[in-house]
């Protein structure tokens, strides 16, 4: 939590001396549990409120993110257990799942850099299962040599340049090496990135590198150096929520198709696996593009024949939760009542009762957190909306 306020001050040692342990107090039974729970809870509430305070920031809901992975010999260092690359792999695996959970209409791509060159590990796509496999297949790539960040950035840029202007273009660079072997001036690439509105964020596993920090600053990205594995995870997780749109972006109406699942049992060949003859085969089911009737196994996808974006309604709906977040509940004094969510009789050991500002129903602490973090809607208000 102390890391949150590193923004204004340049370095940790420039800030005042903080007695972080004084915030922890024992409760009546001499236990620390409630105090710790309270601190965690306060942090969560503050984060919720911060997001609220930012007002109506335009979020990039349709995201295009390239993850550039350093695969140089420095990733074999064992300061993270068992080594840097394996630890990264483990964290990224979780990230992929959560990323597509929070951004169902987004796409990911992977670029690796080692032996002074960069290569595309996986193209942009929106299929989470495929990306989990990509992360698992990183084992096949042996780390070695020196990385080349400029080459990697150029590859990412060449592909992001063509993405439609209403979507967000992002790069996340994870590096362990403090050096890079570049063919030219990296500053020119940085200028190019910022001109194209590519938001570049950097997570360093080793130490701060000036070029990286300058790059993230120039392109409105974030820069972080990890402290330990837990902090690494937090830094990666910050990229799950859609960032505010960088630079100028158009708001336009995009034509989309909402295909239905094929009802007939007649087999057909899908367009998504057409190139790969080993996988491509006749199969029933799938989704048909409403414009040109070509078949796809999975959504969301862009139709290869007529370039219509195909999505399903739940994909759209899932993105809504970033647009309509649930208002925070207010804390009220303990009164005897029953939690509207889980039917627990209150007040319990938390001594606080929470009330929805709109429907005035009361909830316990656990339900409050559950509703705000997972469910994103209030069961009381969905009743009220019907009674209007």
């Amino acid at each position: 939590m102390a890391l949150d306020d590193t923004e204004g001050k340049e370095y940790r040692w420039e800030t005042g001396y903080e007695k972080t342990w004084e915030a922890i107090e024992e409760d009546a039974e001499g236990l620390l549990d409630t105090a710790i729970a309270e601190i965690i809870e306060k942090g969560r509430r503050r984060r919720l409120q911060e997001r609220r305070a930012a007002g109506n920031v335009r979020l990039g809901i349709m995201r295009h993110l390239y993850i550039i992975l350093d695969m140089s010999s420095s990733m074999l260092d064992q300061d993270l257990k068992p080594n840097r690359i394996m630890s990264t792999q483990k964290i990224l695996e979780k990230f992929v799942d959560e990323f597509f959970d929070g951004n169902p209409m987004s796409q990911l791509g992977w670029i690796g850099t080692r032996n002074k060159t960069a290569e595309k590990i996986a193209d942009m796509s929106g299929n989470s299962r495929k990306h989990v496999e990509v992360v698992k297949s990183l084992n096949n790539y042996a780390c070695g040599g020196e990385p080349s960040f400029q080459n990697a950035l150029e590859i990412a840029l060449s592909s992001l340049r063509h993405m439609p202007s209403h979507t967000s273009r992002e790069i996340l660079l994870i590096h362990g090496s403090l050096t890079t072997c570049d063919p030219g001036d990296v500053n020119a690439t940085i200028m190019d990135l910022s001109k194209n509105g590519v938001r570049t964020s950097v997570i360093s596993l080793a130490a701060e590198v000036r070029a990286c920090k300058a790059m993230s600053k120039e392109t409105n990205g974030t820069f972080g150096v990890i402290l330990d594995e837990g902090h690494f995870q937090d830094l990666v997780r910050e990229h799950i929520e859609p960032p505010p749109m960088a630079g100028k972006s158009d708001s336009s109406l995009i034509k989309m198709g909402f295909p239905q699942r094929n009802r007939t049992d007649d087999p057909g060949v899908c367009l998504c696996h057409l190139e790969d003859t080993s996988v491509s085969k006749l199969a029933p089911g799938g989704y048909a593009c409403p414009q040109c009737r070509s078949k796809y196994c999975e959504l969301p996808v862009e139709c290869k024949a007529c370039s219509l974006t195909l999505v399903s309604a739940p994909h759209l709906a899932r993105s809504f939760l970033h647009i309509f977040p649930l208002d925070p509940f207010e804390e009220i004094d303990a009164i005897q009542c029953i939690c509207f969510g889980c039917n627990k009789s209150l007040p319990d050991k938390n001594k606080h009762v929470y009330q929805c500002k709109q429907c005035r129903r009361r909830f316990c602490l656990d339900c409050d957190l559950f509703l705000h973090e997972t469910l994103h809607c209030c069961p009381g208000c969905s009743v009220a909306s019907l009674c209007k």
Partner: protein
Amino acid sequence: MEVESNLLIVVIDVNPAQKYVRSDSKQFFNCVDSVLTFCNAHLMLQASNKACVIASHINQSHILYPIEEREGVTLKPIRQVDGQYEVFLELEKSVRSQIKKFVMSDAFTSFDSTRSADSSGNFTTCLASALGKALCYINRKERELTAGEKLNSRILVVSGSSESTAQYMSFMNVFFSAQKLGVIIDACVLGPYATLLSQGADITGGIYLRPPHIPGLLQYLLWVFLPEASLRKQLALPPPVPVDYRAACFCHRQLIDMGYVCSVCLSSK
């Protein structure tokens, strides 16, 4: 050793405006009886199994069973009658008495008023609220587990109401949260085709079924919905219904095949 238990939450629609209730109100008692028997059958499968019944009405939703003990109110301990398992009796008594209370107090007053009728004149049930409560309850039970215990939860919705688009967002939130928590939502629909519930069943991996013959509801419940999720792949269950995944446009609330989506707020036109 790991102790596994199964939590079954039944959301029962007690809205008097359901079509099958309006055509023959006796069917409703049959439905309640079937659900109770079904819960008993679930409890009978394993001693550690748990059940919970939630009623959803026109403008409220309530947990009927288990009854929460409040301070100052002591529940009468239930004695065995005719050698029946006490839990069965407790379940039956509390569900029946609470449904009765529900119907007596509120049903007719709110049924007459027009405040809960939506634009098309339908009386919609607040199923989304009941499902939200079910997830809160599951969340609570998960937290109350001690080490070495495992809880498999699932939700069954028994409803015959028509759906309202006003609840669309809440429904979607519930379905995606359920998917995240690994809770499956089964839908047993006693009315017209329920688009949202069929989507929910598809998203969470549950079964959507419209029994063709409502008086035989119990048979359908026992055959299709009693087996746990892990057993279901061994069974030849009714084939999945094709799910309608089209989006409704914001201008006319009509389902469309192709449309224009705003890149900022994702409303479709």
